[in-house]
């Protein structure tokens, strides 16, 4: 209760300072648009139909990119952890590709896919792939060897049987931790991927900032924060359900 109160006070103080700075002339409202101007900007965006279509478009890129990036990252991470040969074969490929920032792939995304939804999705996939790859790899490597032996002792000796009976359930916590980080990372990637012209929140922010409509930019910043908060809260629900066996 005490913490909730402090959290609310902190947020109110932040908004008041934010409002005071442009209102008392410390900074130009163009540089720091006051929060009191945001509701009307938000209404304008809704009425013009920009907001809904931008949110829907971004959600589509987000969901597809996140699902593919997470799925591929987890699958390759676990396969690499299970097969030493694959691990060895990929070790330098991974070291080569891992440090390349997601944004560095934008030129290639445009060359390969044009300024298209596919290109945006591709950037998001890259943005979440590595987090999930490493999380799944580490979690699968850390699975209790004693439990793998239990599987052996009770006749579950094949790789597939071990994968589904021991490795996957045993690394769920680690995989989900990676997936949750990816959840936030993917929203950043969505904006980055749309800045180069694919319709969505990022594109709308770019348009607004080139017109110096900074209050509209802030509306979309808050929109992204709210969407992230929502997806993260839903994910935590799902995670707690999947991990209810933990103490």
């Amino acid at each position, binding site marked *: 209760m005490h913490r909730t109160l402090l959290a609310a006070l902190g947020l109110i103080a932040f908004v008041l300072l934010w409002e005071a700075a442009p209102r008392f002339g410390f900074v130009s409202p163009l540089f720091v648009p006051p929060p009191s101007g945001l509701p009307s900007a938000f209404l304008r965006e809704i009425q013009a139909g920009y907001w809904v279509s931008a949110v829907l478009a971004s959600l589509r890129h987000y969901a597809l990119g996140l699902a593919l990036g997470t799925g591929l990252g987890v699958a390759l991470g676990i396969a690499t952890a299970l097969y030493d040969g694959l691990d060895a074969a990929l070790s330098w490929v991974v070291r080569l590709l891992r440090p390349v920032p997601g944004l560095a792939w934008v030129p290639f995304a445009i060359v390969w896919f044009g300024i298209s939804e596919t290109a945006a999705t591709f950037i998001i996939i890259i943005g979440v792939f590595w987090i999930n790859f490493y999380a799944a790899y580490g979690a699968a490597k850390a699975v209790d060897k*004693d*439990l793998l*032996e*239990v599987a*052996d*002792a*009770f*006749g*579950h000796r094949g790789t597939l*049987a071990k994968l589904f*009976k*021991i490795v996957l*359930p*045993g690394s*769920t916590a680690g995989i989900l931790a990676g997936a949750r980080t990816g959840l936030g990372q993917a929203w950043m990637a969505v904006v980055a991927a749309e800045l180069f012209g694919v319709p969505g929140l990022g594109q709308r922010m770019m348009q607004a900032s080139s017109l110096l409509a900074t209050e509209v930019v802030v509306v979309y910043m808050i929109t992204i924060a709210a969407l992230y908060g929502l997806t993260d809260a839903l994910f935590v629900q799902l995670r707690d359900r999947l991990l209810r*066996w*933990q*103490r």
Partner: protein
Amino acid sequence: MATLVDIKDLAIAYGKAPPVLAGFTAALERGSFTAVVGPSGVGKSTLLRVLSGLTAPAAGTVDMPMQPEKGRRPVALVFQEARLLPWRRVLENVSFGLEGTGLSKVERTARAQETLDLVGLGQMAGRWPHQLSGGQRQRINLARALSVRPDLLLLDEPFSALDAITRQSLQDELLRLWHETRTTMLFVTHDLDEAVYLADRVVLLGGKPAGIVRDFPVDLARPRERDTANFSDAVREIRAALSESVNDGAGI
């Protein structure tokens, strides 16, 4: 009695190192209860790992004339630590070994519940492993192995980490289960009192490489009483042989 398991000239080695166990020959009678004792590091646990198929022997044969049967596995192992799967409820832990034995899910659940009732934890079916006490976890460990109705049950110091009272109650529990199921038991322990209390034969391992030093029949009447002279004599005799073999080993 008929022989269930025939072990001939078994040798066990880690990698290219000299064998830890060599020339091990023994036969286990169907329905018998054999305890294996010996100094630590002598290869008692490794022997169980070989018999359960977790480790391949360096030489020798293990002959168990048992064909696979629906809902059964010929050999089951009770680990020293419970090793329950934390993401499975108690009932699903017990049915773990039944998966892949040709039973339907309903049949597996029924068998697991029946086995849980047998070890006295029928009420715990829906619990998570972390909600159980150490003694309850060992009972589940035991139930998981019993549920596959093995011909041979291997037990690797299953009660060594428990407090004295829990240990004794589980020993009595195990004897009751043995009488009810008539499963052949091979029980590794470092506790001579436990060996004499449970087994009708105590095999002492020793030497380098290890082999059978002595094979003691225990023909005390059951139920056994620990405070009797006969019981103490039996324990003392095995203890003397154990010290002797350890001292011989140190002299090499």
